[in-house]
């Protein structure tokens, strides 16, 4: 073989200068990674102002989602709200209705946690059959960040919750307001009023300067631009908890208050947007698993469409309501593969097949599709989204 000129010849970068410091005071990914971006599916919604896009999970590894490519969902556009203009009101069944400024929030004792945020509609387009050809589109309505914020219970205690209070109603400052009712028990448990994600301020599209973090529960409840928390005796039954985010069963009745995101996993590579390009030999199969019920305890991988399963390797022990990365190191010599992953969590829940879900729920549930995903990998290394018997 000829010697590699990349090695034998002095390359420009080994001789000249690179960028000076401050070339990009706040850096963007290098140009060669310009395809690692959020994407949307235009036919899904009438308008990009009230719409959703998808995290490029096929191109990411590890567990933390960079804010710049973490999926966005707005109901009335991502608003610009300055910290100076930010106000948070606690009212309703409290001893003293209170108003906090942004600076006020930073004076309360704060916590930090890594949590996933998954839209209840993630994988929703796949109920009736394999539809979108890419992990970004089938499973990309999810991100996983390290949040810093004040426990909601601290703020509620400051206002003094009265004994008749059973719910909180939370809403945002944008025109959609996106109000949701949350049982007081959850509000006093692990809900965070967050102002930092992955160490820096929230991005505009994720609710700058303050959003709600509702661990393990559907993303719609993670109200962005949080402006008000009202303690009430009853659920408000807003648009987002009646006409949307309710799950219709085959007989026409619908489940409501389906808040918890069940255990789920997906292989991110290989996948349709991340085919095998390196030929035969060692192959790293990787993906991510998560559960709103608690920590992931294990992930199994099948290469034959679910006939045989083998345990994958977790990159780190699972933690509650956070993404877990898994790896399955194998050898591939051009075999046809039907790749699947199956998550298990600490409550003993096992990720179901699509057939199992349909048996209970029918085809029209839209939300909470946490079925096992199948990628068909052909001898060329190309992967496609398929549904198997």
């Amino acid at each position, binding site marked *: 073989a000829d010697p590699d000129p990349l090695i034998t010849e002095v390359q420009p970068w080994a001789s000249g200068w690179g960028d000076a410091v401050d070339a990009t005071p706040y850096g963007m990914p290098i140009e060669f990674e310009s395809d690692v971006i959020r994407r949307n599916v235009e036919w899904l919604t009438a308008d990009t102002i009230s719409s959703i896009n998808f995290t490029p999970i096929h191109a990411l590894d590890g567990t933390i989602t960079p804010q710049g490519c973490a999926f966005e969902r707005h109901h009335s556009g991502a608003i610009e709200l300055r910290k100076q203009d930010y106000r948070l009101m606690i009212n309703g069944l409290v001893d003293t209705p209170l108003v906090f400024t942004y600076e006020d929030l930073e004076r309360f004792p704060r916590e930090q946690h890594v949590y996933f945020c998954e839209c209840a509609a993630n994988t929703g387009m796949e109920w009736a059959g394999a539809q979108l050809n890419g992990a970004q589109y089938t499973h990309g309505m999810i991100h996983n960040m390290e949040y810093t914020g004040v426990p909601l219970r601290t703020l509620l205690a400051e206002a003094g919750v009265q004994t008749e209070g059973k719910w909180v109603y939370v809403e945002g400052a944008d025109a959609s307001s996106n109000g949701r009712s949350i049982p007081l028990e959850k509000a006093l448990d692990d809900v965070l009023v967050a102002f930092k994600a992955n160490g820096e301020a929230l991005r505009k599209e994720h609710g700058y300067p303050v959003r709600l973090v509702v661990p393990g529960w559907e993303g719609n409840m993670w109200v962005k631009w949080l402006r008000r928390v009202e303690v009430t005796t009853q659920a408000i039954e807003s648009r987002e908890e009646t006409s949307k985010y309710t799950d219709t069963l085959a007989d026409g009745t619908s489940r409501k208050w389906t808040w918890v995101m069940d255990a789920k996993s997906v292989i991110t590579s290989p996948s349709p*947007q991340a085919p095998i390009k390196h030929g035969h030999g060692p192959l790293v199969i990787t993906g991510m698993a998560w559960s709103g019920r608690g920590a992931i305890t294990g992930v199994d991988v099948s290469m034959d469409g679910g006939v045989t399963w083998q345990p994958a390797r977790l990159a780190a022990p699972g933690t509650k309501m956070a993404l877990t990365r898994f790896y399955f190191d194998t050898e591939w010599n051009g075999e046809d593969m039907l790749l699947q992953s199956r998550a298990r969590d600490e409550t003993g829940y096992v990720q179901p097949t699509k057939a199992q879900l349909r048996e209970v729920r029918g085809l029209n549930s839209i939300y909470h599709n946490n079925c096992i995903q199948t990628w068909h990998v052909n001898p060329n290394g190309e992967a496609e989204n398929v549904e198997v018997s």
Partner: protein
Amino acid sequence: DRNIAPMPDAAPRMNAEADFDFRLIASAQASNAAADGKFGIGRPALPEEVAAWDLDVAPDGTGLPEGSGDVLNGEEVFVDYCASCHGDFAEGLGNWPKLAGGDGTLDHDDPLKTVGSYWPYLSTVWDYVNRSMPYGAAQTLTPDEVYAITAYILYSNYLVDDDFVLSNENFLEVEMPNADGFILDDREESEAHFWTAEPCMENCKDSVEIMLRATDLGVTPVDEAAVEESAVEPATDEETTQVAAATPAEAEPEAEAEPASASIDTALAEEGEKVFRKCSACHQVGDDAKNRTGPLLNGVVGAQFAHVEDFRYGKTIEDMRDNGMVWDEENLSAFLADPRGFMKGTKMSFAGLRKDEEIAAVIEYLKTYP
């Protein structure tokens, strides 16, 4: 772990003797921080502030203001503010939400979920229209208009007659057809078999066949950059078609660079295209543009006021036209910054653009449709 301090769940208690300032604060909040462990951060919300923000309406009617509106008036308001997306009869246009119809479809494939067929509580309709509609101009309706729109949506669903008047008095009397159509989350019981101590690891199925392929549907967005880059992913016929279809759009910027439009700042116009999304719920531009809630805007820059012949304008703008007013950049800028301030009684419900750059950009964009 003894070396880790726990999260404080109450305000730290300072030694008041040691800190003169603290003594003042403590005495001012004697019933608060000192005694009950509160932090004393934030301030009481004033009644006017709570009233301004606490707008939600519960199923039992809590939160409904006094007021009323009838179906006929509702139709007028609906056509003005809602029909450009939801259709004149609440039937929904394109991908915008359908608010009427779908009765009896909930157990069908692809059920049609509307206010009539699906929504369990009328309070939700009132609440959402009041706080979040019209789209792009939320919180501009009066309570009576919201009652009227709600009455019209009920009428569109054949739930009330055309002489119906909805008010806070009779609100709870309206029966919603699907009020009993919901059950509480029952996954813990109905899906208990997903909690399996020992999931199957071997011989879990007799055979496996591919039943459906996403590529057969061909609805996945085509990533042109990735198609070009990827050597192992030859474009399928469908992809080729879509890429080919996309080519004319790519060629457009070149066409725009022709001498005729030399005076247009293309970069600014592109910014303006984004800003125009705020307008596009009501206004259209381009070859296929039609009057919607607002008039089509082809040729508006430089035109006299009320320039579209077959659009029903308000009296104010027609008077201004008769006085010789022209949509030059100065008038457009003033109107876009403060529609109601510039044109008292304008039918346009949009609140205005806050930034001068956005105004300049959207005008530049409108210039590209002479």
